[in-house]
């Protein structure tokens, strides 16, 4: 080394010897940013969900969604920012950088994103996106067309207020718009649900006899921004890729024109048969929703879960973050000597109709707390158990516009429901069932 330095004396343009020698460059080892992703191995859904060892981490809901996508062999993810899902999709961008997601870009706005998801799913790839509140409603036309096109995809809805007035706070009113699209709709209670539901949604969505999109909803901020313990499988395994050739419909064949982004439209093409085909087409979409039940039972342990139901004086039925608040209300009620059961609804579409009929057939009081004004879950429950239960149903308490739900509010409704005491938070018009205290109704009316 020293010999080579002696013989390689250089001069500057003026002829002066250059005495300093540039330091040798460190040997640069260019690290492949996709190296870890390339090492992932495919495992069966059964192994992933039921057998793989899990470790516990304390992460936000957005991070849980990211970790779910990391293990879900996702081909394409399209982002458009809107609070509170912006962080989620930004984290999916990190996954793209690491090679866990094959394609990723920012769409023009939600209509464009949901339309592009339709095209990508039609082309046969596994797709993920997320939106919230006004974004959901902006994208709802293409979203509502996904089931009719039989497009498997997973969309995360981090529910928030729908404008106006402008607000970005938690409120799950947007779920009510999704319930009649023909898609499968799950409602996650916490970060763990967010992680599990997304991964399982891909598998259920792509079952041949289902072939439908799945919306995984959660209550924004409470789940997306707050941290919770999440038990996760190792990063080195992932779900099998989508087998688009097994779908209930052929994938888009771009090499054999004419290629169409939408299914052949019977309304445009035929005459007197058009009504018939559209009618049975809609039937078929909802039949596919029905078929998803067995997969939800298999992979998610049921459309709903029931806790503390034996000899319960009352039952709280809740979904999403309201289920978490209700669990604490059950504990407070127990401290007061009131035995209260909890039914947590995981799947809103399909809805656990038969399950609720069985669980509530002898129930006297049902309380349904919700994070929205309209009480969509209460309507669903009342419709499902009508004629199968004589329970008084209290459609409340409701909080919305960003309000949190004090646990005591739920406890109050359980107590007033059982004692006949007037509620301060739920109007009598929101109390259903044969067991309504007419005296209380009269008292309420006199005090208006």
């Amino acid at each position, binding site marked *: 080394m020293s010999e080579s330095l002696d013989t390689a004396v250089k001069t500057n343009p003026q002829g002066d010897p250059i005495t300093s020698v540039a330091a040798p460059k460190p040997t640069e080892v260019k690290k492949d940013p996709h190296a870890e992703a390339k090492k992932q191995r495919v495992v069966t859904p059964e192994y992933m969900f039921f057998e793989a060892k899990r470790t516990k981490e304390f992460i936000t809901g957005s991070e849980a969604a990211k970790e779910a996508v990391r293990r879900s062999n996702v081909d394409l993810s399209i982002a458009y920012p809107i609070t509170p899902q912006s962080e989620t999709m930004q984290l999916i961008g990190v996954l793209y950088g690491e090679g866990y997601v094959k394609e990723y870009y920012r769409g023009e706005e939600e209509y464009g994103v949901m339309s592009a998801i339709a095209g990508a799913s039609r082309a046969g790839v596994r797709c993920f996106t997320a939106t919230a509140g006004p974004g959901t409603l902006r994208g709802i036309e293409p979203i509502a067309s996904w089931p009719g096109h039989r497009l498997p995809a997973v969309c995360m809805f981090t529910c928030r207020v729908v404008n106006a007035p402008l607000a970005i706070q938690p409120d799950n009113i947007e779920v009510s718009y999704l319930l009649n699209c023909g898609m499968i709709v799950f409602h996650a209670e916490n970060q763990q649900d967010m992680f599990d539901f997304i991964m399982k949604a891909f598998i259920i969505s792509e079952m041949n006899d289902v072939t439908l999109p799945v919306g995984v909803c959660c209550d924004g901020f409470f789940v997306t921004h707050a941290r919770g313990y999440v038990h996760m499988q190792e990063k080195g395994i992932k779900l099998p890729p989508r087998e688009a050739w097994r779908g209930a419909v052929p994938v888009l064949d771009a090499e054999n024109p004419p290629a169409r982004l939408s299914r*052949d439209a019977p309304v445009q093409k035929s005459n007197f048969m058009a009504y018939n085909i559209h009618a049975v087409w809609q039937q078929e979409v909802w039949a596919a929703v029905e078929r998803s039940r067995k997969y939800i039972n298999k992979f998610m342990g049921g459309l709903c879960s029931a806790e503390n139901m034996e000899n319960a004086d009352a039952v709280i039925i809740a979904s999403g973050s309201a289920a978490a608040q209700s669990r604490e209300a059950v504990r407070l009620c127990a401290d007061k000597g009131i035995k209260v059961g909890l039914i947590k609804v995981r799947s809103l579409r399909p809805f656990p109709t038969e399950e609720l009929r069985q669980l509530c057939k002898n129930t006297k009081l049902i309380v349904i707390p919700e994070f929205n004004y309209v009480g969509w879950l209460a309507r669903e429950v009342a419709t499902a158990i009508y004629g199968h239960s004589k329970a008084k149903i209290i459609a409340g308490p409701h909080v919305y516009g960003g309000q949190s739900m004090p646990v005591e509010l739920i406890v109050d409704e359980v107590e007033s429901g059982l004692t006949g005491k007037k509620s301060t938070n739920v109007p009598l018009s929101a109390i259903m069932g044969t067991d309504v205290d007419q005296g209380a109704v009269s008292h309420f009316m006199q005090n208006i």
Partner: protein
Amino acid sequence: MKTTEQKPERIIVPGPAGFHPPSAAQLGVMLPDPGQGLMYGLLEPNEDLVIEEMARKMLTSPNATLFPGPMVLWAWNEHAVEKAKAVLEIAAQIPDVLIIPMPDYRPKYPKIDPEEVINPNHPNLTIWGNKIEACIFIGVHCHYANLTLKMIRAGTNCCTSAICAEQGHEDAMLTVRDSDTAKLKKVAQIFKRVRESMGLKLPANGENVRFTGTQSKVHGGKTHTNPLVFMPTPGGTAGAAAFGHSPEQMKREG
């Protein structure tokens, strides 16, 4: 879900079921598990019994018809070709059977020729046009098969069967699932056994497939053919153009 062993009332039977009857899923019919089948909307634990009933219907009903779909009509790959051959083996066991293809899923405009094709957007026209009282769908994508089966049940008296490569079809009166080439060959064998037990003979020259009027015109006035001489080859002459589905025509259909 009720099984055939409990002998309850049949749920999915030949129609016309009504102007717009509920789907089988709405009526509580669920798809069978592997090895099982559905017989008139009831779970049949032994799929062979379902196949036997398919055979009886196809051997005794007027104008029994096989409706092959795109997955066995086009030589996508070796597997598709093998399945297509197996479908023809089934056809070879049914005297006077018709074969009317469902080559694609596009609505036929301005009107369908029911003697040429069946189409999921108006399948009842082909059923009515040929007075078909029993049929089997094979190789149709599940979504389109389900549309077809619902409309046929609503508006016709045809007994429908679906031999499905996936999970089966609730709206078919008879259905079996997971039908790969081996199972299709098994279906052909069961059809043979049932036919022989009924004392039904095949023509000596093997020409047991009856042409529709349109097919007969295309084939120079012949009335029947031997399905086994139609055996396809991968990438062979049995392309779309041979059946009138040229790229030009597809473009015209838009």
